């Protein structure tokens, strides 16, 4: 463990550099307030940023740092595209959407762009993917890159897997299966949790008590653990019918996640049912359905939408984790979690063939990118709604 002295040395050097920087600034600018009142922490921060920048540039020119270069190129490219997308949004559209894009931080436009790309991929997977997801070809284990001299094949840009399926097509179909199933599950969880939560808030009494206590108990079990337990039982029920297991998984995760939705819907609903307009609607003799869908739901829209984004992320990650552990989405459906598990061994070839080692990270990164994007958008939405209240 000779790493620790090095880290200490670097921190000390950075601290010294920051101190010198501040002193030099004070001398050169004749004690301008910017430098005179600068705390040491800020000076250290500048030194740290400069050090990180220099280190990054040094790393960029290292021969073995292919992954670093790809990551930086990817982030920069996405940032530029997101910036252009925001410009486009500011130029075209109605007055309202242009105003929305003008006030949008770059992270949020990045998020919206990524979500749009995923949606297009998921909906048109069949048209975009060069091959079918279950199509098996004669050549197995073709290396990625498409260069015949290094074991690739131009027809399969990302190569084929152990039994000869095209990885690029499976990656694209993964958007359809993984994202699609997560979306359906989240909708189901909201239908269940939202309806029951609003019912509990409106009717109160014993129904509220029973539902709330039941939710308390279900929430006392960690959700991934409970999902795994129920999946054990579901796999016994499903037997050899693999597609049935996927259906069971959707129902199980929807029920587990609906408890969280229930909590929120009930809390939001309780705040709304004490309003005067609800009282007025009740006195008019409106029915329960009208109260929930026409009075409560429109007013609970904003928090529920933000929760939908976050819940989607949780559901998506749970499904990906279950698939990664081998009990989630079942083959032959292409799915990112399963792909990561199947391809994970390739990571050991990073020194010889960086492209091959990138394959499992590509599938895992596809999951991460979407959840990051959704989180950026939700963060911005929450910031906006809370900002309007102030």
């Amino acid at each position: 463990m000779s790493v620790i002295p090095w880290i200490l040395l670097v921190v000390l050097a950075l601290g010294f550099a920051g101190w010198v920087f501040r002193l030099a600034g004070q001398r050169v600018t004749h004690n301008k307030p910017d430098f005179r009142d600068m705390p040491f922490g800020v000076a250290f921060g500048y030194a740290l940023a400069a050090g990180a920048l220099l280190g990054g540039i040094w790393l960029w020119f290292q021969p073995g740092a292919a992954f670093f270069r790809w990551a930086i190129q990817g982030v920069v490219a996405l940032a530029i595209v997101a910036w252009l997308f925001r410009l486009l949004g500011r130029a075209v559209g109605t007055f309202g959407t242009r105003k929305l894009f003008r006030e949008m931080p770059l992270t949020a436009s990045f998020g919206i762009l990524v979500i749009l790309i995923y949606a297009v991929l998921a909906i048109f997977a069949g048209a975009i993917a060069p091959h079918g997801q279950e199509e098996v070809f004669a050549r197995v284990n073709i290396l990625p890159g498409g260069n015949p001299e290094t074991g690739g094949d131009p027809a399969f840009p990302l190569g084929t897997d152990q039994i000869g399926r095209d990885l690029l097509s499976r990656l694209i179909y993964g958007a359809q299966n993984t994202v699609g199933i997560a979306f359906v599950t989240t909708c189901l969880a909201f239908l269940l949790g939202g309806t029951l939560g609003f019912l509990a808030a409106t009717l109160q009494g014993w129904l509220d008590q029973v539902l709330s206590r039941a939710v308390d108990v279900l929430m006392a079990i960690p959700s991934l653990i409970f999902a795994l337990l129920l999946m054990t039982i579901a796999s016994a029920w499903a037997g050899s019918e693999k597609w049935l297991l996927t259906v069971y998984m959707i129902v199980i995760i929807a029920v587990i996640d609906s408890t969280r939705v229930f909590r929120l819907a009930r809390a939001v609903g309780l705040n709304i049912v004490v309003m005067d307009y609800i009282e007025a609607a009740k006195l008019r003799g409106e029915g329960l359905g009208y109260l929930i869908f026409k009075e409560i739901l429109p007013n609970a829209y904003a928090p529920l939408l933000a929760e939908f984004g976050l819940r989607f992320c949780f559901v998506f990650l749970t499904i990906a984790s279950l698939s990664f552990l081998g009990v989630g989405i079942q083959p032959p459906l292409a799915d990112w979690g399963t792909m990561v598990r199947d391809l994970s061994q390739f990571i050991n070839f990073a020194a010889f063939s960086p492209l091959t080692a990138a394959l499992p990270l590509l599938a895992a990164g596809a999951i991460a990118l979407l959840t990051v994007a959704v989180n950026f958008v939700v963060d911005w939405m929450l910031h906006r709604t809370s900002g309007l209240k102030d």
Partner: protein
Amino acid sequence: MSSVFRIILQRIALGVLTLFIVSIVIFTAVNMLPGDFAQAILGQAATPEAIAAIRQDLGLDQPPVSRYITWLAGAVQGDLGSSFAQANFASFVGESTGGGEVTVATQIAPRFANTMFLAGVTACIAVPFSIFLGVLAALYRNSAFDKAANVFTLSSISSPEFFLAYVLILFLAVLNPVLPSLSNIYEGMGFGERLQKTLLPALTLTLVVTAHMMRMTRAAIINLLASPYIEMARLKGISPLRVIVRHALPNALAPIINVVALNLAYLITGVVVVEVVFVYPGIGQLFVDGVKNRDIPLVQACCLIFAAAYILLNLTADIMSLLSNPRLRHPK
């Protein structure tokens, strides 16, 4: 003091009650399995006598309520039953009796210690680190550092654990072999070596957990910065760092403790995936194997342990945040 004591006792009683109900839920869920274990173990060709013998031996012929009581009584005394997958059923199909049965408890005990070690190492790195970063982010709020930290933490919260794990493996184990990518831990290993093998999974978990704790620490401190007494402290002319560390932090302690405990509880779930990635011999991996082999007593026991740890940590969070409130500690 007595009122705090009473509240704490109430919380503990509530926790025990929750655990009891959770055990009922787990037991009921497992009993929704179609057919029965005996049939599943022996397959279609089994004779009715053999099935009946196994049913009797496993106590499956008892009614559910009495089975539940037996299971719970055993679990409280540390006897979690015997594992199905490892069981020796040769005696029931006419072979000679040989070999002892593998109990769930003997399987779980060493792995439980390993998992606690992993969680402990993670907590030792993550808790000081995230509070330190959270204080810094609150101190330099809205600066470039704060924004970079925001983007970074948001990304690491929303990435799946296995993505972070493989990125760490790629950079720290494959490209620059500083740490081993497989955590093959065995008994009688030296502490240093053991720590080194645990470091990579612990770092992965740290990344996941730190982000959350840091964001909450920052939010809790910034929430307080608008209060009049902070204004007063600032007007006195003390430095921003001192305002935060001496004045804001003690009052932000309750939410911070809460979030630390909640994240340690979250570790319990995160541990499952990370243990599988690093082949770490912990309870999470045992659980996933049990799920795949449909080893019901094992799954039941692991589930109960995870739930108990989860409830215990939530309970601790509750009690600690109660105790950190001086108004409750010193009632008028």
